[in-house]
Structure formats: structure tokens, C-alpha cells
């Protein structure tokens, strides 16, 4: 019998959803991204890259979750990559939601200006959810707008990645019909985006089908249309998979009898046995930080330690000196799943920093009182617009802190015989 004493949270070990993702849903994703894959097998971000998230609420709402940015930041921890979220509730490929009382610039003009000012090298684009209510009839206009936007991004010499809309989930029974209708439309628009992607040789990630499957098992939206924290957790893993990035999971194995080690997704080193106590020590370097775990679902990622050749008995594991879990030697030899070791704390902290940085950037690019600071009443308060530039140094500082937290640390493990 395994006794789990989780240090921070007490929850039941449930499932390994990432595995599920890789095995069950990616096939569909693969199907949809297959045409691109032949052209763009490797997605990589480099030092100096500026990633922009552009779109409707799907992007805007990640500002507070930070999942997309955590995923990409921690993927290349040695690189200085910066992120700007330009998601805007209600937005369309024509930037309709970015309108102000004043014209010019037009709503679309604002969108283009915001893109220009963000200086992207990579742009993730999530549109179509609002346009979809126009149904079949709206598709030609939508595709035209999407193409026009892709040209703007090409002109900036940035790489575009297109995302499909997310499906509509029913929150109460009376909406079933509305939800079905909306999903048919959303699917059509996903296909339209996919076609545009194919025509323009742009990477496309279909979120629609994968999220429908996940939605059968988890509550992933706040209101049927907007993802909640759990939803963003899954969203970032679908996107990583769609980008062809390897899994973040790892498993490590030590054969205590001869100190041979084996690991996948992490590096195991410095295996030692204390002659007096018989305790085993080893270090593990994660290749990537894990995703922070959503608070309201009991989810763990697959991080497994297997210890073979142990004498019979019960063994407790400490990580960086803190007690973590106890299991029997036979359970250890089968492999024990672990979660919430210090790298999760670090990932959570990284996420907090990212969310804070996002907030600062939000105030800078979408300031309150825009009318008076930058708009047509700037003759009244335009002199205060200098304050907006003061956000730059605050954002820079926040990014420096993010840089300090994105690299996974070596964790020292100790298996203590009870």
C-alpha cells in the first residue's frame, strides 16, 4: 500500500492526461497539421525572439493564467525570449474590438499599430470565435481578413502560427441547441483557418477536437466559451504538442544494486549510497520546468521515479531535504509518480511573475484614459502620456526576474529506509 503524503496539497492521484493527450488526441491534431509538418517540422524559439499572442478573449484571458507564456518560456530556458499579449475581448481579424471614439486610426489601424509596436518575430493568432456566429456566409470575408492580417505579419518578417477557435460547451441544458449550432460554425471556421494555413504555408494548430475530448472529462470553461485555469493548462499542452515539441514528462530509474541509471526527459546523476544508513542519494535535472498545476482539478503530470534492487522494506523520499512520499520497495520497483516537488513551486512562481509582467504591459499598451493620453483629447492630458513609457522599465525589470526563474534547478533526492 502506497501512502501519499503530499507536502503542499493533499489530492488523489488521478490520471496522466498528458499521456492521454499524446496518445489519443494528437492523432487528430496530426491529421490537421500534417500538411504543415512536412514543411515545418521543428518549431524553435531563439534568443531575442519576441512572441506576440494576438486574438480575442482566448488570448486576452491567458493574461491572468500565463500558461502559454510559461510553456514557451520554460521550453528554452537559456534563451531570452519575450512575450506580448495583444488579445482583446470580442476581437476579429479586422480588429473590430480595438475601436475608439476617435477615428483615425481605425480599429484595424490600431491593431496594425499595436502589432508594429510589439515588434514580433513570432505571432500566435487566435481569431474566428466571434466571426463564427456569421456562419457559412461570413467565411469568405473572414478568410480575406485573415489573409490580410497574415500579410501584415509577413511584412513585419514575423512567423505566424494559426490557432483554431475553441469549442462551445453547454453550461445548462437549455443551451444545448445553441451550443450545437455554434459548434458547427466554429468547426467551419476552424476548417477555413486550416485552409488558409495550408495555402500560405503557415503552421496551424487545431484546438477544437482535442478540447472537445478533454471537455468530456474536465470542466475546462468558466461559462461555456472561455477557458478556465484547467482549460489553459490543457491548451498549452495541446499547443506544445501541435508545435511538435517533446513531452515535459520524465521518468528516472536507478538500479541500486549496480548504480546504473536510466532516464527519459531528465538527467539523473551523482547516485550515492550511504554505507551506514543505506540511504540512496541522487540528483535529477529536469529538462524543462513542469506546467503549474490548475488549482481546481486534481491533475498531475507524469514524473516517475523507479528504484530497483532495493532491500525489502519501506522507503521515504525527500526532495532537497524535505519529506515527500513513502512507498514499499516493491512499489518503488514498479515506479512511483511524484508531483509538487520544488520545480512546481518554481513554475508557479515563474507564472506569477509572468502574470505580473502581463499586467504591466496591459497598462502600457491598452491604457485607461487612452482618449486623454494618446487620443484626440491628448491636448488635455497628453503630457501625462510620459507615464506610459515608465512602464517599459517596470516591464524590463519583471522580465529580468522571469529570466531568473525559468531555468530548472537540480534537485537532490534522498531515499531513506524506514
Amino acid at each position: 500500500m502506497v501512502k501519499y503524503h503530499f507536502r503542499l496539497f493533499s489530492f488523489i492521484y488521478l490520471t496522466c492526461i498528458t499521456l492521454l493527450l499524446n496518445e489519443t488526441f494528437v492523432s487528430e491534431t496530426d491529421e490537421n497539421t500534417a500538411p504543415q509538418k512536412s514543411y515545418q517540422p521543428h518549431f524553435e524559439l531563439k534568443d531575442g525572439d519576441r512572441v506576440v499572442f494576438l486574438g480575442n478573449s482566448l488570448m486576452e484571458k491567458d493574461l491572468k493564467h500565463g500558461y502559454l507564456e510559461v510553456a514557451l518560456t520554460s521550453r528554452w530556458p537559456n534563451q531570452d525570449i519575450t512575450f506580448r499579449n495583444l488579445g482583446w475581448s470580442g476581437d476579429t481579424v479586422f480588429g473590430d474590438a480595438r475601436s475608439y471614439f476617435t477615428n483615425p486610426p481605425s480599429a484595424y489601424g490600431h491593431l496594425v499599430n499595436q502589432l508594429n509596436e510589439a515588434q514580433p518575430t513570432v505571432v500566435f493568432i487566435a481569431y474566428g470565435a466571434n466571426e463564427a456566429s456569421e456562419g457559412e456566409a461570413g467565411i469568405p470575408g473572414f478568410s480575406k481578413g485573415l489573409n490580410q492580417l497574415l500579410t501584415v505579419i509577413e511584412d513585419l518578417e514575423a512567423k505566424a502560427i494559426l490557432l483554431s477557435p475553441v469549442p462551445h460547451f453547454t453550461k445548462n441544458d437549455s443551451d444545448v441547441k445553441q451550443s450545437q449550432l455554434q459548434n458547427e460554425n466554429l468547426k467551419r471556421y476552424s476548417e477555413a483557418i486550416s485552409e488558409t494555413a495550408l495555402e500560405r504555408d503557415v503552421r496551424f494548430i487545431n484546438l477544437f477536437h482535442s478540447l472537445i475530448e478533454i471537455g468530456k472529462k474536465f470542466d475546462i470553461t468558466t461559462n461555456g466559451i472561455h477557458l478556465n485555469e484547467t482549460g489553459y493548462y490543457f491548451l498549452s499542452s495541446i499547443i506544445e504538442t501541435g508545435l511538435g515539441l517533446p513531452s515535459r514528462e520524465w521518468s528516472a530509474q536507478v538500479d541500486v544494486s549496480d548504480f546504473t541509471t536510466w532516464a527519459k526527459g531528465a538527467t539523473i546523476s551523482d547516485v550515492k549510497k550511504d554505507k551506514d544508513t543505506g540511504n540512496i542519494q541522487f540528483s535529477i535535472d529536469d529538462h524543462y520546468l513542469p506546467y503549474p498545476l490548475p488549482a481546481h482539478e486534481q491533475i498531475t503530470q507524469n514524473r516517475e521515479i523507479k528504484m530497483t534492487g532495493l532491500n525489502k522494506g519501506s522507503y521515504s523520499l525527500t526532495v532537497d531535504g524535505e519529506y515527500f512520499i513513502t512507498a514499499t520497495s516493491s512499489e518503488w520497483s514498479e515506479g512511483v509518480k511524484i508531483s509538487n516537488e520544488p520545480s512546481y513551486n518554481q513554475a508557479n512562481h515563474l507564472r506569477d511573475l509572468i502574470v505580473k509582467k502581463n499586467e504591466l504591459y496591459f497598462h502600457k499598451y491598452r491604457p485607461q484614459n487612452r482618449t486623454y493620453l494618446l487620443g484626440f483629447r491628448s491636448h488635455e492630458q497628453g503630457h501625462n502620456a510620459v507615464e506610459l513609457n515608465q512602464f517599459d522599465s517596470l516591464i524590463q525589470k519583471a522580465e529580468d526576474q522571469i529570466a531568473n526563474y525559468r531555468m530548472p534547478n537540480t534537485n537532490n533526492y534522498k531515499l531513506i529506509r524506514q
Partner: protein
Amino acid sequence: MVNIILLPEFKPFGSTKKNREGRLIFYAFRNVLHTICKVILFIAMTFTAVPLYAQDNLRSIPETDPQHQLEMLHVAEGFEVNLFASEPMLVKPIQMNWDAEGRLWVIGSATYPQLKPGEEPEDKIYILDDTTGDGKADKSTVFADGLLMPTGILPGDGGAYVANSTELLHLKDTNGDGKADERSVVLNGFGTADTHHLINSFKWGPDGKLYFNQAIYNHSNVETPFGLRRLEGGGVWQLRPETLELEVFVRGLINPWGLQFGRWGESFMTDGAGGEGLNYAFPEATFTATPGAERVLKGLNPGQPKHAGLEVVSGRHLPGSWEGDYITNDYRANRINRFALEEQGSGYVSIQQEDLLWTDHVAFRPVDVTVGPDGALYIADWYNPIIQHGEVDFRDSRRDKNHGRIWRITMKDRPLVEPPQLVGADTQELLNALKLPENWTRSQAKQILKERGAKEVTPVLEEWIENLNREDLDYEHHLTEALWVYQAVNVINEDLLSKLLSAKNHNARAAAVRMINYWHGTIENVTTLLREAVADKHPRVRLEAVIALRNQQNAEAANIALTVLEQTMDEYLDFVLWQTIRELEPYWIEEFKADPNLFGEPGKTAFALKSVSNTDVIKHLVKLYENNQVPIEYHDDVLSAVSAWGGIADLNSIFDLAVGDVQIHENGRNAYFSALEEAMRRQRKKPDRDLNQIVPFTDGEDVATAIGAVDLLGTWGAGEYRSQLAILARDDNELMQKAALGALSAIGGDESREILINMTSTTQPDKLRLLATAHLASFNISEAARIAITVLQDIPEHVNVSDLFTPFISQAEGTRALAEELMKSEIQAEVAQLGMQVMQRQLPWHRHDDDDAVALKQALEASGGTLPPDRMPQELSDEEINTLEREIRTTADPARGEKIYRRNALMCMNCHALGGAGGLAGPDLSSLGTSAPTDNIIRALIAPNLNVKEGYELTQVFRNDGSVVMGTNIRQTSSEVVLRNAADQEISISQNQIDVVETVSGSLMPPGLTSRLERDEFIDLIGFLSKLGEPGDYRGPSNRIVRRWQVLNETQGTVEMLNEHGLFYPARDSENLNWSQTYSKVSGNLPVEELPVIKLGSGKNISFVRFEVEVLDEGKISLLFNTTDGIVAWNGEEELNLLSQNVNVDLSTGIHQLTVAIDRELHGEKALQVELKDADNSSARARLVMGK
């Protein structure tokens, strides 16, 4: 300084990795660099970030002690006021609402108006509790903080809804410690482009829905499970929080900061930047400043100051006679207003009552008002000497950040209400609470019932309804409340609905019809129900029915809606029918084309056809019109529909009428000529008839018709009539001259040019030379400039040449051309000076420094055209403004200032209104003094472009012919843009003539208007302006006093006609006389001594004035004259019986002209005042015509 530059945290997470060391050094270095950069940046900022308007001695900042403020509050007779709570229990309250426990939830923002970079938003929700029941809060709990400029708060659904900038939040305390520990975003995507326009005024509707407002500059795009909802500009949102169904309930208003529901669910709004008092808000009501609206509703109190917050009086504590009155805050003038409502037709009349509270304490800023569970009135006092948002620097240190008060107003000697215990009450008790007179109690009980849900509530509710006493006077109100409970718990009860549809009380029926609208799609026989409701005997029920029909989406619904025309109509019914017909257009238009008798009766057909913007059906409208089957009140609408949408055949029909002998329209030919001209302007279409038929009318007896015909020839480019036009250009009548020359230039071409050039030769009359030269500017500007100089050089001195400069100054090329010509030769110094004056008046401010303008100024100066130095310097330093302000405080004479304000030369009244009367080009100044600090008023006068009020933004329209029109935007629809220019004229530009429409910064008000004033005059003028709105002589009385007048000027022949026909003549033949605008003083008095005198043959000295009354519902009204000495007055042509000062007049619906003759000897110098009053026992509804 060290405190401000936070050293970057340098705390890498662990450091066991070897490869980190290099990075650490890199970071350390980078951090040092950053620190250095930041220090530099900070130092730089210290010098550059000094506010534009440097701080002075914090003038006019009152003492902040609450006791001191309390002593300065004057409350109406019979009431008393006490302090319920003040800082530190709360700061900067913006909205407040009660919970079911009787605690007051208040939202406050010290961050407003703008978050500082690096500062964390720390705005709070306070819960104030009076646990001892002594009328003072003794406990303040911070329910939540860390909010960013929250502007709305409403307890409910186990927590509270909060407006938090782009988000609508719901906060909950799940562990009972009194503080929110759960925060969810209910909706997001609300606009924040202006933080004093954020979503606000959270209220529960009677239906359990959450209603809230937003204002003009904010555009919201909200994604909901039912689709995207957009609201660009002002309006009211309606949300069902359980399902997230979100709709726009009302559109428009500038800054609608105030919303309230009456006892029967009727709703009203106030506008913090508008000026029409209460606004009657029903579903899809559309008010001013709604983007794209072709038609908007007016408020109920035109000419009122701006208001924030709104509450309706209910319950047993406040006086019974006040029941149903609305209380709102004139926050600019530090006072609390009350309005009594009366039903009138399908709407209401709102009559202002005496103020509830007033004070000279300038920081008293009542922004919200609510009746508490104890029946007392509670006032949220935002407490701030500065209220202006954009006009005063965001960082102005006079903006108060630390105070805030809740005042409580009670009636002396009247018991408070003992509120029932609602929390924990059983369902039966909650239902019984719905019978209580206090709105607070019923609203809270309904919320709790909603939260309990249908399963628990409906069985008890059914029984409760069954047991209601049918004899109870309020029986039908109880049933209506029950209906709302069903709606709130989302259960349909058709029996109850049909019972209420046949209720005796029309309010109950109106509420029930609205419910049909909400339940449409789920109940049966909607069509039958609505058919009956449209024929209801009460107009408000009909109004709701016409609205409800929109959801039916079929031609039959349009047909049913039109049956409302079978009974008396009024402005609201006309509006909603127009809206319904338009919304249903896609469903009836095809059927109508197949069957033009679809609507049966011609009057209904005409209404439908004139309402839609549809080219295909105009021919049917024209046919009805030709057959004289269109009701007379639609005639103007028919002609404007034909101009906008008619085809050639339709225009031919109008043409035939215009030149024929039979005219259907009461204004005859003139109206047809204008319609044809308008059609050409909007659609570039003209009839293909023989235009010769127009020509005889060009020299007909009626000058106006002749001019109309001449204009048409010009508009149509009828070149073959140039010679006739050339003759008309020499007409005796200057208006005809101008029209003919205008037509010649409109026709254009070399022939026109030659005709005009000939008219400029020295042999021609001076006036013609001038006019012809001005018109040449549209042909060849250089040639025109050359000729202009010649004309200017040799025209005799006595001829006023100022109009000749205008066409050149209005365009950059013209300015340049005139400058170039003037460089070559000289004109007389006096003429050059005149040119400078014209430039000063007419050159738009943003062109002042353009090369062409500078060149012309230099050229005029070279001819000796230097203007005398400004008497009142127009460029003032901050120090000078401070000095001025001190002098204004101590020496200004506001009475003298008002006289200066009224001077024609200053033109203040041309553009600004006081109490609604005056020009509309600029904001109404009624409470300027109590809302703007004196230094701001000074700056606004010397540099108007730095100070533009919302609603007065400049719009610039580039026409596709290359010309530019600038003005404030009145209306922008799919077919036209309507601007108001600096001369306060409305200019309509058809969309097909427009390249670009831009909003640009700047003001219509020219700078330098006060430069000709002496310094002491300037001081008096500002003294007057800074007193406007303060209690005393400079606060406009709230009753309906005539403020907008026209006065008769003597022109050639006037005296003869008066001698011949008698005093009665101006009342009869008014249109042939010369009237000019004048206005009453702030007090409402018309200074008789300022009026022009006409000396009659009899030796009498008479002044004539007239004013207009608009009657909405016919009947008897009353006029109260302050004196009848030497006064004779006429209603139209009928003399009033002025035996007493109070005279009753019977008036039909429409606008009526009332003319007053003042015998100056008999009357003396006493000012004249006339008040419009309701006559006893009369149902007439009338208002004074306001504006310019």
C-alpha cells in the same frame, strides 16, 4: 529617490548549476546598467514630468472637517442631515447599494483618474454597518481591495458584483470572515478609454436582472455564450447573471451616470454630461450621442444641469406626497434636486421641485443617492474640489484622494421604517415582504427568492397568489411582483400573465406586455396577445406592445404594430413605431412589394414607407402623396424620404407638383424645390423633365420661392439659364443677388466665369463687384485674388469689404493666392486692418501657423494692417493667471460681468446656452462656476483648444470634391454626417460625398475673443462665469421661465406697416420682418432696457419680442407674466386677455409663436419675465422651445 528606484530583486532560484555563473555575471551587469539608466530616467522625469499647469496655492480648498461641512449643508424645511460615515471608514465613494442585511456596500477609488506606473491599484469595497441603529455607521469592513477603479457595486448572489475597469467581477466570501476570498470574472471586454465613463450605476431590475450603464468614449466588446455583444458609446446593459444573457437595453446619452426603476418597473436615467434631466428609458430607447442613430429621444427636462445618481422615493418615512418622485444630484452645483413625475400619454412629464439640499461647500460632490432600509435618504459625497476629468491635470494635487462621506437625510418628527428581517426568513415571509411599500424591501426580498430558486419558491408562490386579497387596492401590484418573481426564477406562468394583461391598472398591463417580450418564443398566442395590447386604451401599454412586436419577425407583426395609429399618437409612440417598422423591414418589405395594400389604410402605409431607408418602395409613397392620402403631419417626412431614396420617376412627380397649380404640401412650391435640391445633393439625381418650367418662378412675386427656383437651377447646373441668372444678380434684393451669383458659380464653366468677371469691372455697382469677386474664388483662385486686390484698392471707403476676405481665408490655396497678390501691391491700411480682423475671427486655430496664413498676415501688415495691441493680453503665465484669479475673487462684479457676457460683440450667447437657451455650438454654461476652478475658466477663454468638453469634439469631413467641413458631430448615419459649424448651423453631408471622417482635437471656439476687453472687464466676465451655478443670483431658477426670445429690429418699411396695420402686425406678418435672437439673463429676466425701440407715428415707443412654446399634448396651458404694465400679447394672431398676470391659453399640438409688445413709456425699465405653467385641471403638456 532611493525609495522610488527599487533595485531589481536579484535572487536566482538556487545556484547549483555551473552554467549559471556566467549568466549571473551577465545579469549583475545588466542590472547595474538598468539601475544607471533608471536613475537617469528618473532625473529626467523629475524635470519633464512637472504638470503643465504648475500647482499654485491650492486655492478654493475648503476645510475638510466633516463637522465643518455638515454645518454648511442646507437641507429643505422639515428635514435634517447627519453624517453616516466618513474617512477613514471609506474614501472616494462612487456607488453604494444595500444588502439584505441592511448593510451599505460602497465602492471607492483613490486611484481615479489614472493609475500611476509602479503603483498597485488598491481600490476598495467597504461594507458600512450601523449595528446600533443610531443612524451612524459604527463598523466599516474592507470586503475587497486591490481593485482598479471600481465604479459599480451591487450585493447579490452570495457576494457582490463589481465593475472593475474592463471586467465585471463577482466577489464572494466563502469562509465567513467578512472578506472576499473568491473572485470570478463574470464578463470582460468593457471599454476603459475614459475612466469617468466606465461601467457604472449597477442596479437590480424588478425582473431580477442586473442593469448597468456605460458612457460615450468607451467601446465595449463582450463575448457571451450567446454571442458577441457590442456597445460603442453610452447606454444601459441588461444582464441575467445566471445564464450570462446580455443585451443592450438602452443606447446613447453622453455620460449616463444614474439609473433607477419605479414601482411598476418603469425606468429613468440621468446624464452626468447631458443637460436634459431625467430620461425616460424603455427597451431600445435611443438618446443623444448614439453612433449611427437616425433619430433620438429627448430628455424630460431640457436645459437642466448634469446629474449623477438616481433614486426614486418610496416608503413610509419620506413624505407621502413625495412618493414616486426622483432624487438626483447636481454634483457640479453642490446640490440635490427632486423631480416629480406625471404620466402623460405613453410617457411622462417631469417637473422640478425645490432642492432637497444645497451648500456652498465646493468639495461636496453628491454622486449617488439611495433610500436606506430605514427609509432615510443616503447620499454618497465623493468629496472633491475638482471634478473635471480631462480638463484638469490628472496629477493636479487639488484632486482629493483621501476623503469621502455618506450623509443621511431624515424627516424630523417622522418615524423611521422598521425593516423586516429578510435574511433567514421563510419563503412565505419573503413573499409577504413584496407587499410592503418600500422599494428596498421588495427588491431585496426578490433577490433572496431568486437565489432560492424555482423549486423552493414556486409552490409557495402559487399558494400566495391564490390567497391574495382581491379587494386590496394593491392587488394588481402584488400580482405584478409575483410575475417578476416567476421571471427571476425563470418559470413561465401564462395564467398569471393573462390575468395581468387584463388588469384594471394600466401599469400592470404594461409590465405584463413587457413580459410577453421576454417570454416570446416560449408562450403561445403571442400574436393574439400583442394584437390586443396594441389596441389597449392606455398609450403606455400600446408602447410596450409596439416594442414587443419586434421579436415576432414577420410581416403580420408590422401590420399589427401599425394599428397603433388608429388611436392618439405621441412622440414616444411615434418613435417606437418607427423603430419597430424599421427592425421588421426585412420581414414585410417583400410582401409589401407583392401587395401594396398589405397595410390596408393609406395612413399606415405612408407611415411604414416613410420610416424605412428603401429605394424600392418610395414610388408607393409618392403615389399616396399625389393622391393626397398621406396625413398632413407626415408631409415633411415624405418629402425628405423622396429626397433621400427616391428615383428619377419619383423626383419627376415632385417636379410636376412644384410647377403645377395644385399643391398638397402647405408650404407648396418652396418645399418641393427644397426637396429636389436635397435629392440632387444627397443622391446626385434630378428629374428629367423640361427644366424650362422652373424658370418663370425665378422672378415670381414671392421672393423665397424665386430664390428656391434660382438655387435649383444652380444645383442642377442648368447652364442654359446663365443669362437670366446674370440679370437676377443685379436684383434689388441682396438675397436674390447672392442666390443668382451662387447659382452661376454652381453651374461653373468659362461662361459663368466671364459673366462674373464682367461684374467685377469698375463700371459695375460696388456691392455687385464685391459679391462677384467673392464668387470667382471657386473658379480660378489666383485670378480671383488678383481681381480682389483691384476691387479692394478702388472700392469707396464706406462700403464694407470684409465679406470679400472670407472665401480666400477659408481655404489654404486662397489664403496663399491673396497673400501673393497682396505682396505685389498695396491696399489701404483700413482695409488691411479689416482683413486682419476677419482672419482673427475666421481662421481655424490649427491653421494659424501655416505658411499661407503667416504670409497673408505679413502681406496685410505690409499694407499697414496692424491691429492695435490686445487690451487684455491673451498669453498669460501661470503666475499671471494666479494674480488674475486673486483679483477676480476680490474685485470682480458679476452683474457687470453678465452685461459683458451679453454683449453682441463678444458672441458668447451665439454659441453657449444658459439654462438651455442660447447657442448649441458650445456647452451650456449654467453650472460652470461650480464645476470648474477659476483658473480653468480663464484658460478655457484664452486657449479654448486646450479645453474641449465631451460631446463637443471636432469632426473633420473631407468631401470627395476636395473640400473640408469642420464642426461638432451631431449625427452620423449610414446616409449622412451632420455637423454643427462655428456659426452654429447644421450642415448635412451625404455619405456619398465623403472621403474621410475624422475626429480631431481642438475647439470651434476661436481664441482671442476676449482680447478687446479691458482688464477689468475681463475680470468681471470671469467673475460672472465663475459664479454660474452657485446659489444666489447666478443659478438659473428651475421653473419653466422663457429664456429664448426673438426681438424685432426696425428695417425699412417696418414703421409704415405698423402705422398702417397696428401693433398686431408683427404677430400676423412676422416672417416679413427682421427678428434677431436674444436671451433672458440667468435670473430669467429679459432686460427691457436692452431691447431696440420702434418709434411709431402715434409717438409711442414700442419693443416687440416673441417666444415659442411647443405643445406635446393639446389643451390649456398657463402663462404667468411678472407684470402687465404696457404689455399686449398675442398667441399667434389672437390677442391674450391680460387682465391678470396669469393667463390661460388653449393650444393645439405643435409649436406656437407668442408675441409681446412692450410700450416702453407705460412699462418702464422693469425687466420682463414670463413663466410657462400647467393650467389647473388640464392634461396639456408643453415645453418652451430652447436652443439658439
